[in-house]
């Protein structure tokens, strides 16, 4: 590996680099729920007394920037390795969520395609009362072997 992962972690992990406020509208909740194939009324019918966003709803949001300013790896330099949503409380129509972004973890592993570097981008969501709504971990993976090979071959 040509990246010092421990140094990268020390320099960047756990520091909030972005914060945005996002209003939540009933129409958008319904559209998201329907797109996901949800049929339960509490996700699709605004008149339902328990109407709320589906559990994965906050995974649709992104902040003002994907990675911290000057972070050595930007999102276009890897590919999406999936999102994990931990739900802490219901998100309702009319709420305004605050999303705070940080680099949560950086680690390496080996797989069929060689050495991979994973960056875990965490967005923590709270509502207008600062009550926890959810935590979304998005993993960005970068294939270290292919990057190095390209560099050695004089490609970008």
């Amino acid at each position, binding site marked *: 590996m040509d990246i010092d992962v421990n140094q990268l972690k020390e320099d960047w992990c756990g520091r909030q680099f972005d914060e945005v406020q996002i209003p939540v509208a009933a129409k958008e909740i319904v559209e998201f729920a329907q797109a996901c194939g949800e049929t339960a009324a509490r996700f699709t019918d605004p008149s339902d007394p328990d109407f709320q966003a589906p559990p994965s709803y906050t995974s649709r949001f992104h902040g003002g920037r994907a990675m911290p300013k000057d972070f050595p790896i930007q999102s276009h330099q890897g590919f999406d390795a999936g999102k994990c949503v931990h739900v802490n409380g219901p998100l309702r129509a009319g709420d305004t969520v605050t999303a705070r972004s940080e680099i949560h973890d950086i680690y390496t592993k080996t797989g069929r395609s060689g*050495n991979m570097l994973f960056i875990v981008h965490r967005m923590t969501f709270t509502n207008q009362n600062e009550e926890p709504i959810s935590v979304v971990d998005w993993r960005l993976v970068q294939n270290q072997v292919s990057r190095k090979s390209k560099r050695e071959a004089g490609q970008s």
Partner: protein
Amino acid sequence: MILDLHSHSIRSDDGRAKVENYCQWIRKRELPLDGFVLTEHRQWDAKSDYRKLEDETGLCILKGSEVETEYGHVLLFGVNDDLVAALDFSRLDLPLHEVVAAADRCGAIAVPCHPGRVTVGMCAHYGTLGPCEGVQVIETLNGGSRGTENEEAIALAEQYGYRGVGGSDAHIVSFIGRCATKFEREIRDIGDLVSELRGDAYEAVSFKE
């Protein structure tokens, strides 16, 4: 007794299954498993205690690890404080001969897994690095293998006289038990498992449809 010797829970970065859900799946689907071993990636999960779940489900739930070496990935059974002190589980380039020797010294056993898999299996590395001394057992049946990867693992075992075990390498619930190991004797704890793996009264079995 049939145990799936290779599985991952949400404690692994790429695991998507809760241990409780593995148990529910095994019972609901009436899988021919008596238990499974959780082999989380690059770590030793010392904290998790599954004894209550064992009592509730009647399944044997044991813990191991999966570490990474220059020959590929390796399962460790019988991990204890001594072995944790001897090896940096987070490294991607542990020397396999050191892993095997440390496991042996600490009362554990190292089992290279998915040997037929490119990059992270030992078959490909035997050509360039040569055989690794001390290896006795390899995973000949892996539930996540593709194409001829398991056949290559079986051929390697036959060539070098290794004993073979099976494991699903499950990361999601429905993959548990796709491959497993059938033991002649009962296994009640990790000590029993290590002891049995050092013998030869077992065989790898596949339940892949």
